[in-house]
């Protein structure tokens, strides 16, 4: 009898194995009720970064344009393609270029990987910048999101530096001279400029030491920094109460009930979950009408959509356009003009007027202004709407600076010929 039970047990176990295995991983079935939807988000490691419910405004495509997500997905693509490229790359001045040729000629999917990595990198710089513009123009950096804005500026800088360090690695003429120009700009900094340049290059000129340093920065130091910052950035989004949104109409206003911690602990009569201690707009006690929807499936579908769209765009770009690979490095023969990567062309253009002010002074002021923006602009109104009328001054200043920056980049990219003289592109 017991034998039979045992056999039946084993048989049942085998029969139920797929189901048990599945349910051991995914603790909830595909949700059909609100409770299950909440539970799905809460119990899955990859989903629990999401809140259970998000505000409707968060899902309005026209509000976020999905730019933050696109940057993150581009970063994921960069990680995957970058790691695959690392299998083939050697950071050595004698081998790097040959490895590029091998990637192009004889490594399976080599060209395609490189194209994806290249276009994603350019795309990430552009999209991170646009994301910043979106956040500014919707006033989303205001209290309580000031520090997340600061983190965001840090992320922009790290992204730029990451792209810049990657620029050198193919070790072709484009790489060599772009980095020569870029690091020379750093050399204009007062007092420490030459030291910074030397620290970056490990030498007086771009050479083997610089290649190795840029490689280590590019594949280890900066991605780690970026991941850390992204983690904190995401965490802060939730802790700051989700994405910014307009103030609720009066009839929907949420009354925030702050529960004094000491009191809660002292009062033994009621027990609160951890949730009960969380202060802020999301702490809901009682049944308060709100304007939020469940993350599953609304937010997830939106994210999936952005992801597929990003991947599709990058794949198509990589199929149509090849990443440039110019001549092997020739130290004796600079191209004329030698141009920095496009996102630094604005700097280079400004440097052509004044080395210190264009290369160091004005950019430092820009970055400081960006970092301090939420602390200088304390006007709490106009959050959560594009081009809010209350923020006319701030938006005008910001747009002006952005337009000036873009104009400088366009001039540097298209209107500068040999000896940095003005040429007409048509």
């Amino acid at each position: 009898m017991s034998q039979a039970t045992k056999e039946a047990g084993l048989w049942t176990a085998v029969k139920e194995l797929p189901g048990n295995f599945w349910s051991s991983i995914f603790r909830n079935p595909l949700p059909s009720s609100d409770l299950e939807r909440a539970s799905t988000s809460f119990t899955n490691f990859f989903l629990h970064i999401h809140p259970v419910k998000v505000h409707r405004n968060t899902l309005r495509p026209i509000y976020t344009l999905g730019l933050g997500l696109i940057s993150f997905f581009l970063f994921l693509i960069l990680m995957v393609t970058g790691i695959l490229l690392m299998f083939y790359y050697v950071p050595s001045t004698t081998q790097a270029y040959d490895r590029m040729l091998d990637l192009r000629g004889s490594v399976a999917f080599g060209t395609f990987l490189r194209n994806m990595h290249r276009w994603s990198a350019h795309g990430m710089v552009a999209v991170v910048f646009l994301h910043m513009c979106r956040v500014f123009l919707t006033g989303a950096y205001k209290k309580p999101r000031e520090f997340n804005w600061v983190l965001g500026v840090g992320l922009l800088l790290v992204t730029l530096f990451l792209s810049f360090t990657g620029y050198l690695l193919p070790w072709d003429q484009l790489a060599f001279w772009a980095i020569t120009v870029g690091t020379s700009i750093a050399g204009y900094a007062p007092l420490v400029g030459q030291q910074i340049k030397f620290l970056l290059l490990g030498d007086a000129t771009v050479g083997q030491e610089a290649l190795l340093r840029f490689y280590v920065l590019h594949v280890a130091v900066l991605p780690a920094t970026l991941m850390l910052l992204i983690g904190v950035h995401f965490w802060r989004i939730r802790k700051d109460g989700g994405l910014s949104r307009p103030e609720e109409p009066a009839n929907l206003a949420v009354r925030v009930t702050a529960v004094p911690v000491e009191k809660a602990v002292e009062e033994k009569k009621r027990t609160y979950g951890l949730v009960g201690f969380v202060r802020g707009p999301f702490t809901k006690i009682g049944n308060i009408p709100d304007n939020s929807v469940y993350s599953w499936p609304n937010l997830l579908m939106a994210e999936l959509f952005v992801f597929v769209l990003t991947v599709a765009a990058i794949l198509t770009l990589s199929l149509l356009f090849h990443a440039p690979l110019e001549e092997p490095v020739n130290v004796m023969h600079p191209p004329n003009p030698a141009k920095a990567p496009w996102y630094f062309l604005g700097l280079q253009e400004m440097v052509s007027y004044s080395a210190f002010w264009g290369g160091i002074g004005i950019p430092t002021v820009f970055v400081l202004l960006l970092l301090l923006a939420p602390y200088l602009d304390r006007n709490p109104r106009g959050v959560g709407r594009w081009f809010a009328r209350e923020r006319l001054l701030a938006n005008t200043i910001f747009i002006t600076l952005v337009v000036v920056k873009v104009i400088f980049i366009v001039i540097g990219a298209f209107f500068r010929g040999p000896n940095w003289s003005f040429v007409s592109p048509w």
Partner: protein
Amino acid sequence: MRLALAIASFVVLIVHGVVFYDQFFHRWERHQEAYFDQARALSKNQQERAELEARAPRIEQVIVTSFGDTRVDRCGTCHIAADDPRFQGHAQPLRTHSYSAALGDTLRNGRWERRHKFSDFGCTVCHDGQGRGLENYYSHGEDPYWPEPLLGFVTQANWRAEFKPHLRGPEYLEANCAQCHTEENFAGTPHVSRGRKLFFSMNCYGCHRIEGMSEGTLGPDLTEVGKKWRVDYLWESIVDPRANLATSFMPKFQLSDADVESLVIFLKSRRGMNFAETSLARYRATHAAEIKPAAQPAGVRGEDLVREHACTACHKLGAEDGGIAPDLTFEGLLKDEDWIFEHFRNPRSRIPDSIMPAFRFPEEEFHAMAGYLAGRKSPPAPASPAETYQGLCARCHGEKGNGQGKVAYYLDPAPRDLTKAGFMNSKPRERLLHSIETGVPGTSMPAWGKILPPERAEAMLGYVLTTFTREPRREQAAHRVPEANPVASSAGSIAHGEQIFVQRCSGCHGRKADGKGPNSLDIVPRPRNLRNSFFVAALSDRRLFDSILYGVQGTAMPAWIDYGLSQQDVGDIVNFIRSLNQKPTGSQYARR
């Protein structure tokens, strides 16, 4: 949204399909399969057929380590039949590489044997191109970024269209033959040998340095020019030197297309150290050998030397005209032997901004040539002013008197534009006549008074003023300028003069007062080089004061009296300018 998601997913799928197709169906595989099929059909040997049957496409490569940097040549992946003699009549890429006795291949028992085996030499050592590439676009170097396209076979898309037809042909491969076959008259590289001869006979060596061959310093060093540049750039630099560098003063020599081709092939073969030498051999060659053009047997006549050294590649001498440098036909009348000799030894000791290189010939040869030129004393036949102008003046001042004669570009200072009435009419007639009769020191304007008697010089001036200047002279208000500089020269005066000069004058005349200030390129005529001692020494204080205070009409020099310079200031500037130029001793042209 679901529809959009579906479309986007579909795009992802399609792109994957295309990428995978690209990845797994290479063109070279099809070439190899075609080769296996055709070779099987041609084969008479059962075993060979079986072997061919069993072969699958793969990348064929040769790793070449004996010639410079390690090369990885994968050309045989497509050109898989290159060493299979049965494929001689086939179309590329499946054609046998030609056999040739000239390349050293030998015919033994009806079978050719290669001198340069592909397994030892690879392909790119001779042909250039990108050995690692597996697609035509990259491997043949059609990609404009690749510095070494297949020599003589591939022209890149961005090359100038008019050059492209010249840049094809197997003779360009000689540039690579010469990497090992460095003998001067190696039979296999006739174009390189011819180019080398032209390098000397067209006087290229006077300006350009090639390590172990020549010592010129005026132009770029050409020791590694073949490594740095593609053939299209070399061609362009020879036939149109200013295309790449607007300020280049390299002359456009009169060369046939065949000459240019030989020079390009010769230059393409200059790659610094070549495969044939070790670093030690190179060191010995460059440090032990004294570079001298082949010595002339003693007692050679100057006339022969002038021909030998190809002076007429630039100068005019009798009927021969290089179209670049001044006419030497009447040199004996215009200059004396000492002047010519000193000028040979260092042209810039006589004409400070001359572009003529200082050739390193033995002194005897200079003496012989100077003697020959000084002996040319037959004057031109008397003629009307118009004919005289066309014979003596037009080569520099231009047939229309606009200062655009055919050698004008190479003269510094440039010949005066005689049509500019503003200048011509603001200067006293005596000064213009003086310039014709005694020349302008420190410039290429010779003293025509030694050829033309005073009345003919007078008639010439009249001709110029009526034909070119045309506008009648108008009397101008008298200028208040001192005859001699009233300010005594002293250290303080010079320092003050320099201070004003740097503030007011250096924008055009340059900080060094050499006439090469930042604005100088936009100004015609160019600002004066105030370090030209011969010129400055011949200027009177009066003329300096006049030019500074009242400007020079018809040029960019403004009247500084309008900008608040006092006589005292100008005196200091004049002292400063004089202090830059030590008074030349000897004749007005000669300085020893």
